[in-house]
């Protein structure tokens, strides 16, 4: 049983190699797909086997690589949090794989890098060695750079290059942070670092602050909070659809969970509180840009950042309820965001158009996609009875003591509703798009959507609904089994006041949508769209972010 963590990393790597081998032997490509599917299902079964031991018996699987024990060797740990994120990652990847199977453009190279990405993801989650974590982060990143550029369109390559430079700078900062930690305590395993690397053990405070800031900013570039997110919209928007869903659905969260673990191990409580502010700003600011977007996938990408803001802010509050809310929202966001990306991908597949303004009345042509998108949009906007409602209520309840962050989050919720109303208009509006002289879009050209694209959408919609209907079970489960804490007070999510709150946000959001669809609103949107940060400014912002973090650590 203890070697399950090892298999979770090895199986995808092995599959990747096998796919290469099969291609050299010129075997029909259906075998590639079969092997990919069976490998992911094997991993799912392995995680299923470990459920009982990890969640009920509270056991931690520890595997020492090469037989070397902890302070010297690298070990893999699988505890509740790792089990949770690993399972979430595998489920989203499975849906991504099913979605990509029907696409003919994806050659064996796509599946090769797909599995390298999966392996890197599992590695980051499971490893208990900070340098090893760096290596897995790099594996994950290199695979994702290649997958983002996979379509070889101009913008995709540009986005991939931007991401590469920004993220490499971040990884260098992370490595520098590891250097300080090693200098301070002579240990690299997270357990050893937690024991020895703290101010009480004679580490100079300035060194501790510097190391924590470097590490948080380094990983934070992948977790995309303010001011480090500028690479994300392009990279997630121009990647192939299954990859967009995986990047938005799970990769940014895995980076965030790595920060979560490191902050908990280093016991940087002050720092955790800082995330309350970072998170609430991250929730609000990208929404403003999201409102102005006309590209379907770019709008969704901006919302990924914004929803990460909800998760991060709730993590920053630090009580057991808010941590549960944070994990719950992380879980929900993984599902509804991949649902939305898959739906957007299906719309683009069917029509060949990714500009919101050119599409209208799609409800009649592709009703199934319209319904799944609607479910995704209701979930992300926090409308009962879908899952986004539950986790947003948990988050707002737990942030009650902090008036300003909860106000920012309230505003972000309104913006979310408005921009998803805008998105939904492509299905339900009657207005002819031709008015804006954007070229004719003839409804007859719509391609038929294959079933393989629709099955993942249906499954994801069902999950979105189910995790919204049984809120207290899941919340209790998360807090008891994964965070190992009891929820402070009984939950009552579906109370009239909560539903009223969500309906208020809905009303205000629709009002905001009407405002931005006026002529003046469209002018402002155009001006905002043009104001995107270039590569140089994004790199500069990384440094500025680092300075802000260091100063903040000094002040507290």
């Amino acid at each position: 049983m203890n070697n399950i963590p090892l298999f979770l990393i090895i199986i995808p790597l092995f599959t990747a190699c096998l796919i290469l081998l099969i291609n050299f032997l010129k075997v029909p490509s259906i075998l590639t797909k079969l092997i990919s599917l069976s490998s992911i299902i094997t991993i799912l079964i392995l995680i299923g086997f470990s459920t009982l031991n990890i969640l009920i018996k509270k056991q931690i699987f520890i595997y020492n690589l090469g037989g070397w024990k902890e302070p010297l060797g690298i070990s893999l740990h699988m505890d509740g949090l790792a089990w949770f994120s690993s399972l979430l990652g595998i489920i989203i990847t499975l849906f991504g794989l099913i979605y990509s199977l029907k696409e003919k453009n994806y050659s064996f190279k796509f599946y090769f890098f797909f599995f390298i990405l999966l392996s890197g993801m599992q590695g980051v989650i499971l490893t208990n060695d900070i340098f090893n974590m760096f290596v897995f982060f790099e594996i994950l990143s290199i695979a994702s750079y290649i997958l983002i550029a996979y379509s070889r369109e101009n913008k995709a390559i540009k986005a991939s290059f931007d991401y590469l430079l920004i993220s490499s700078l971040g990884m260098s900062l992370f490595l520098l942070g590891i250097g300080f930690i090693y200098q301070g305590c002579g240990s690299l395993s997270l357990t050893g670092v937690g024991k020895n690397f703290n101010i009480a053990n004679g580490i100079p405070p300035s060194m501790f602050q510097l190391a924590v800031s470097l590490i948080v900013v380094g990983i934070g570039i992948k977790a995309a909070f303010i001011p480090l997110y500028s690479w994300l919209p392009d990279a997630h928007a121009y990647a192939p659809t299954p990859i967009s869903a995986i990047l938005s659905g799970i990769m940014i969260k895995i980076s965030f969970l790595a920060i979560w673990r490191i902050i908990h191990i280093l016991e940087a409580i002050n720092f955790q509180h800082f995330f309350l502010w970072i998170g609430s700003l991250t929730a609000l600011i990208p929404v403003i840009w999201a409102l102005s977007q006309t590209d379907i996938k770019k709008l969704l990408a901006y919302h990924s950042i914004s929803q990460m803001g909800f998760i991060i802010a709730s993590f920053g509050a630090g009580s057991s309820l808010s941590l549960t809310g944070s994990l719950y929202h992380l879980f929900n966001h993984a599902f509804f965001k991949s649902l939305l990306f898959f739906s957007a991908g299906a719309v683009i597949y069917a029509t060949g158009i990714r500009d919101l303004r050119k599409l209208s009345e799609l409800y009649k042509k592709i009703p199934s996609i319209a319904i799944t998108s609607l479910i995704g949009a209701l979930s992300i906007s926090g409308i009962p009875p879908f899952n986004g409602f539950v986790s947003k209520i948990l988050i707002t309840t737990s942030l009650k003591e902090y008036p300003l962050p909860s106000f920012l989050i309230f505003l972000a919720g309104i913006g979310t509703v408005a921009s998803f109303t805008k998105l939904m208009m492509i299905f339900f509006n009657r207005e002819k798009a031709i008015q804006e002289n954007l070229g004719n879009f003839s409804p007859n050209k719509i391609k038929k959507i294959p079933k393989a694209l629709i099955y993942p959408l249906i499954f994801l919609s069902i999950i979105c609904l189910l995790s919204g209907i049984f809120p207290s079970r899941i919340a209790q489960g998360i807090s008891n089994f994964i965070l190992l804490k009891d929820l402070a007070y009984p939950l009552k999510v579906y109370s009239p006041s909560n539903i009223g709150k969500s309906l208020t946000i809905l009303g205000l959001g629709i009002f905001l949508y009407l405002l931005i669809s006026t002529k003046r609103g469209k002018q402002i949107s155009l001006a905002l769209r043009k104001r995107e940060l270039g590569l140089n400014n994004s790199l500069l912002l990384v440094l500025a972010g680092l300075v802000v973090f260091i100063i903040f650590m000094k002040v507290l």
Partner: protein
Amino acid sequence: MEFYLTFLLFLIGVWGMITKENLIKKIMGLNIVDSAIVLFFILIGHRQGSTAPIMEKGIKDVVDPLPQALMLTAIVIGICLTALALALVLKIDKKYHTLNISQIEKLSQNE
């Protein structure tokens, strides 16, 4: 003293990444940052007057071998990244016919 010089090297690399307009120079900046970090790690493990950690008879005073082992990994990763980045630059050059970042950004916005 050595630490300050390494830090200076790091800053030079970051400066190159941020201010240079040419994509290849930006990648060079990234490489300089990587080298600075390698030097930093080697300095962490270094002690005055000690020898390389090849444990034969009679050798007592050795430097810490772990940072050196870590840096071997980091250098390999750095090479992979550079190769990938240069490959992407090649593609960018084919599509946009320029390597100047501000021109590329202007072109990609007008698309």
